[in-house]
């Protein structure tokens, strides 16, 4: 992965960025057809906020309401069902630590149309900021590489994130992008209406007309 050689080798070397800003950058790079799965917590809220637009909210987004840790498995399922569509999973550090095995499953399947973005603030922020193992010695990008996801990298800074997300959009994955983020509050709160969320998502994917 020569293309990833100029990215930070470890979490400590990556710049601490802002989650809403990073999510806005990601949504800005997307076309209309990529699927995005938001895990629980502030990762999810900021995806909701960043997906608001003048022509309505971005449709092919799925917002979990519980089932902590399942953003990557859900995204993998969508990616299997729709192999020509790029699928993004946005997940927090606490959430992915709960379901690390899914990184191995994604690697074993060599799911080319999948990109995982980890928002790592080293804390369970929504429950009061208790420390996660990330930042106390656990490096999630390192775990991903050891799980077999060779195309895993820390975003050095905002420009580096844009470059990595652009690569994920153009080239075969699976990809994993680690983003160190601050403790900023989310910009909005996701609407809690699961039937509507699911229906919008399926219409966005063209499964429902």
């Amino acid at each position, binding site marked *: 992965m020569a293309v990833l050689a100029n990215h930070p080798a470890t979490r400590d070397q990556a710049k601490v960025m802002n989650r809403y800003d990073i999510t806005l950058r990601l949504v800005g790079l997307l076309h209309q057809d990529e699927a995005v*799965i938001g895990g629980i917590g502030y990762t999810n809220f900021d995806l909701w906020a960043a997906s608001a637009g003048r022509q309505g909210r971005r449709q092919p987004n799925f917002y979990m*309401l*519980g089932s902590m840790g399942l953003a990557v498995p*859900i995204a993998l399922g969508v990616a299997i*069902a729709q192999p020509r569509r790029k699928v993004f999973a946005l997940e927090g550090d606490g959430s992915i630590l709960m379901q690390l*095995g*899914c990184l191995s499953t994604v690697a074993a399947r060599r799911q080319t149309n999948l990109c995982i973005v980890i928002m790592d603030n080293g804390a369970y922020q929504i429950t009061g900021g208790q420390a996660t193992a990330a930042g106390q010695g656990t490096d999630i990008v390192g775990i991903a590489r050891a799980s077999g996801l060779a195309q895993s990298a820390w975003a050095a800074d905002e420009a580096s994130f844009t470059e990595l997300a652009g690569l994920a959009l153009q080239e075969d994955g699976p990809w994993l992008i680690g983003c160190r983020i601050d403790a900023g509050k989310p910009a909005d709160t996701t609407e809690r209406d699961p039937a509507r969320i699911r229906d919008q998502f399926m219409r966005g994917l063209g499964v429902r007309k």
Partner: protein
Amino acid sequence: MAETWHGIVRDVLKRHDVRLVTYVPDNVLRPLIEGVEADAFFTAFACTREEEALGIVTGAWMGGTRGIVLMQTSGFATLSNVIASLALPFRVPVAMMVSERGTLGEFNIGQSLVAKTMRPVLDALAIEHHTMTRLDETDFILDRSLVQAYATMAPVCFILSPLLTGGKVFSK
């Protein structure tokens, strides 16, 4: 050749276009797993946890592909949160098939204890479930229940009794 329970399951899954099979392996499920893995109609693979397997089938259904999760009783016991917070509120018809341990000759006390939680949890979550004991009923139960699951957008659980499969036999 006489019909087998796993041959019938494979045929009914095909009839209902259930193409994705995610599983955490189990000895009793082995012939079914081998059958679907040998058949190009299916995409079948092992997952690290049952929750993960359910999440994958949920995503696939939203993407237009039907799937089923295979597991054993102890694996089902790990699922109540994701059924209650994902499959049920989002109305995703996840099909589950559980190889029943913990009864009719169980030798592992952990299996016999956790097995007691399975039906009460299914009932508490108001999930349609059927215990399959007879070869001649297998097609009917699966066929009708899959129709119902997709028509009503509700999860369904099939429990494979040792009466049907032979179960796992005690050996010292």
